[in-house]
């Protein structure tokens, strides 16, 4: 049966396109029927709800149960098919978790007609079992889905009476959908927390947390087989921490003063015409993808710094922290300046007028009145900028190195959390090795570090806004 198998799993129900076309068709029919019936009835006596609402409600009473049947069916199929397939396999193979995973993947590939490498004759029985489970399940899903659809349709049609509050029912449904959509944001956070926390926990079963947090050596190359001696892997994040902090510090040394001064100038001095030109310039810079900045850092800025360093007799690494930090600083300038600009313009005019009335010059007003008043906002802008710098990936991946040097020399190559996460997880990975889990542990540290900064910064901004609103 033609269809798309999105799941790549054994139980993947490859009938979705036809099923969903059927679902849409039946729901549309329900809409037309219900609307027509309500409109007809409304000719004789007045209905509580407009015909359209009866139609929309009928549409939902057909579509939702059919959708639910599909989701539940697909889930159950996966469960049953996998269990049955495993039962048909050699028990020795099932006992070995690695080979079991590989076999299941191969069965899924065979079932969805993808090319499979190697000898798979041992899996034939399991494939047949899974296939028959799938066929039965597909038939069952169709039968149940159709039944649910028809039942929904009959139910909806029976409910069409003058007193039935179809609009209220439908609106209740809509509010639930809206709420669920808002809930996805929460779900995303929960998903992030779970995915990093879970893997980090597994990582800490292999590497003690203390070693991870205080170790000064980072080389995650673990032995692939147990009998491979020598490389045991070292997971101390101190060099990564210093590298990240070094680059972020350079970036903030660039972005802090320039961004703040630019914001002050734009908010307090610039004429509307200057603002009209300068604001888009900052916005363009903010919109440049980081991969472009990374390319620029690696191929233009880094060689320039190297040449400049050599002419001064300094030995500059070709992937120096300075190049990455400088370009990252440039990236953050628009961020700092637009946030600070907002904060500065939010300072009430009365404070400025008071200062001018006492005879202060503009710069004195800014330095002694506006900046102190705006300080909480500016601090939080800087904190958000730091969190940006720490979490930035592409610039450091392309312009900073991989070498986990424990150094504070900006001319040396250093590495960061994000670079290591990217390096470990790109390419083929064994999902159970300490190395892969280490990437998630790094992600955990990164997430909670930036989260803390963000929460504090956003809380400060919120309180600040309330103060002047």
């Amino acid at each position, binding site marked *: 049966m033609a269809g798309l198998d999105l799941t790549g799993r054994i139980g993947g129900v490859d009938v979705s396109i036809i099923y969903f076309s059927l679902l849409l068709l039946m729901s549309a029919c329900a809409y037309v029927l219900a609307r027509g019936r309500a409109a007809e009835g409304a000719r004789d006596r007045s209905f509580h709800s407009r015909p359209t609402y009866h139609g929309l409600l009928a549409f939902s009473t057909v579509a939702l149960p059919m959708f639910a049947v599909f989701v539940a069916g697909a889930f159950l199929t996966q469960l049953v098919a996998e269990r049955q397939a495993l039962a048909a396999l050699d028990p020795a193979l099932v006992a070995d978790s690695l080979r079991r995973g590989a076999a299941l993947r191969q069965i899924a590939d065979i079932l969805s007609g993808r090319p499979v490498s190697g000898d798979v004759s041992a899996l034939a029985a399991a494939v047949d079992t899974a296939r028959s489970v799938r066929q039965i399940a597909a038939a069952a899903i169709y039968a149940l889905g159709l039944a649910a659809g028809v039942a929904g349709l009959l139910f909806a049609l029976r409910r069409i009476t003058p007193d039935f509050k179809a609009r209220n029912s439908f609106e209740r449904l809509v509010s639930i959908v809206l*709420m669920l959509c808002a809930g996805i944001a929460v779900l995303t956070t929960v998903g*992030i927390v779970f995915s990093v926390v879970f893997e980090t926990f597994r990582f800490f079963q292999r590497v003690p947390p203390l070693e991870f947090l205080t170790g000064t050596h980072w080389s995650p190359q673990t032995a692939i087989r147990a009998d491979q001696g020598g490389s045991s892997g070292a997971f101390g994040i101190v060099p990564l921490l210093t590298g990240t902090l070094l680059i972020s510090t350079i970036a903030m040394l660039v972005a802090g003063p320039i961004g703040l001064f630019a914001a002050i100038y734009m908010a307090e001095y610039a004429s509307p015409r200057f603002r009209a030109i300068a604001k888009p310039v900052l916005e363009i*810079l903010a919109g440049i*993808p980081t*991969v*472009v900045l990374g390319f620029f850092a690696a191929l233009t800025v880094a060689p320039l710094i190297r040449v400049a360093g050599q002419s001064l007799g300094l030995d500059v690494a070709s992937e120096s922290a300075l190049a990455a930090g400088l370009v990252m600083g440039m990236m953050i300038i628009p961020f700092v300046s637009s946030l600070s600009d907002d904060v500065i313009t939010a300072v009430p005019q009365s404070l400025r007028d008071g200062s001018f009335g006492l005879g202060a010059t503009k*710069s004195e007003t800014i330095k002694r009145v506006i900046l102190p008043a705006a300080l909480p906002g500016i601090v939080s802008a800087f904190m958000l900028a730091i969190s940006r710098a720490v979490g930035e990936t592409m610039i450091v991946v392309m312009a900073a190195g991989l070498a986990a040097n424990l150094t504070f020399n900006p001319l040396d190559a250093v590495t960061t959390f994000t670079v290591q996460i990217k390096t470990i997880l790109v390419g083929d990975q064994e999902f159970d090795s300490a190395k892969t889990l280490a*990437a998630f542990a790094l992600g955990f540290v990164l997430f909670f570090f930036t989260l803390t900064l963000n929460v504090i910064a*956003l809380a400060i901004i919120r309180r600040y806004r309330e103060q002047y609103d």
Partner: protein
Amino acid sequence: MTDTALAPPMTRSAGVDFDSTEARELLKRRYRAEARFKALGLLAVLVTAAFLAFLLVDILRKGIPSFFEHRATLTVNFDAALIDPKGTRDPADLREGDYQALVRAALQSQFPEAQDRRTRRALDGMISSGAVDDLRQAVLANPGLIGQSRVMPLLFSSDADLFLRQRDTLITRRTGSGPLRVEGESNAVTLRGGGAAFRAALAESKTFLAERRRALLAELATLPAAGSNAGVDTKRTELEQAAASIQARIADANAPETLTDREPSLLVAIGDGILKITEIGANEAKATTLIAPKPGSIITEWSLLTLRVPETNRRVNDNVSAWLEILAQRGLTERAFNARFFQNGDSREPELAGIRGALIGSALTLMVTLLLCVPIGVAAAIYLEEFAPKNRFTDLLEVNINNLAAVPSIVFGLLGLAVFLNAFDLPRSAPLVGGLVLALLVLPTIIIASRAALKAVPPSIKEAALGVGASHQQAVFHHVLPLAMPGIMTGTIIGMAHALGETAPLLMIGMVAFIVDIPGAITEAATVLPVQIFLWSDLPELAFQSRTAGAIIVLLGFLLVMNAAAVILRRMFERRW
């Protein structure tokens, strides 16, 4: 209270004397500080603008050449014996034909003197394998070509292309002064010119020697002090000797120089031929023949070519340089728009690599993102702005959305890897997963923008609707939402532009594979434009550098269009209530 109000006003005599020199001095200082502060602010803005300008100019300078390609326009004889030996004209047979041989024959007819295997291979290497495919496509499209001779554009290899763009080496041409007498042939030609014909070239090679000596001396300076280590001492003596011998050669300005492949190459172009100088004096030079000129012993018109980069450091050797030079001289090279760049997928050959696959991949990914995050984002915004009760849960939701907007993008990649790939077993490298991850990434942006747009609609609109009996939802969906739509669309475009430029999370979910095929569905392996840029920037070949910059120009072009659309939309529909 009244006391303060009635206090005697401060008079000049009672307080500070504003006319005193100190006071004037102080005022001047304060005004200077004011000017300084203002200048610093302006400087900050200008530095930022200058950086942006530098970035854009650098990218354009690097990238624009990639929109052009160099081709040789040679006469190709579509020999039936080579491409259709069976004479069937059947496309299946035509596909199997030896089109490489056609290219080889076309080159041979230009340079018949290239006979031995190595030279011939170098000659063939000038032309890209893409040219062979082009010929095949031409014949398949028009089998009538078989048996005919046509002038065909043949794509140069990336090395030849770099040479023609003078990126491999700088080439300076100098018209020869005075008549030149040519004696001997093939590998032992002697060129005699009256009146110091080669003096300038000789001086140039001496300058090069001086540079090398400086490099040696610089290396000497970095060595540790004498006597510390025997190995270092021998090295020091070697360097000193080498520097001294070079010094001796430089000192005698008229002494002839032997040119090896470690010095800049000097080629003499005589009519349709090219000689390579092996030893140069002020009036006389020894040379070998690269391409034989027309016979004749006294030449009046000749020129001297200096290839600045020594042959060992070049990708194109002197032989190939000579061929390219002659082809250009014969008017058989052309520079044309590089349509391939927009039609091809990725390739290991820089001259054949294109961004079509990445563009389609980006389009598919963004489509998934758009379909997911606009309905969900707008729905969430409507809920939070219009329907959510003000309680702690809603508060938490708001804080959560604001925080999510500031979570590093790579963390979303981790989420995609752990949840979509490992838990849900969705296919790796697929636009489906990429779109899902990017949708989660830009969702907060869209929610925040949509809320702002909804908030900007004045409450009177909603109240009027409620007043005539609309339900709360009817008021929102029929009246508030349509008015907020321009703002929501602006936010959406900006969110999409953000998603288009995003790289890091897509690396995590495996969209970094080398993929030649153009993806056709959201479940097929694909890559996106920013990831393609990242992949190319990692490659060592110089030719890929300009491809990378070219792809960046295309990406920035798309972003510019999207942002311009957002700005225009805002201008067109912006309403002041």
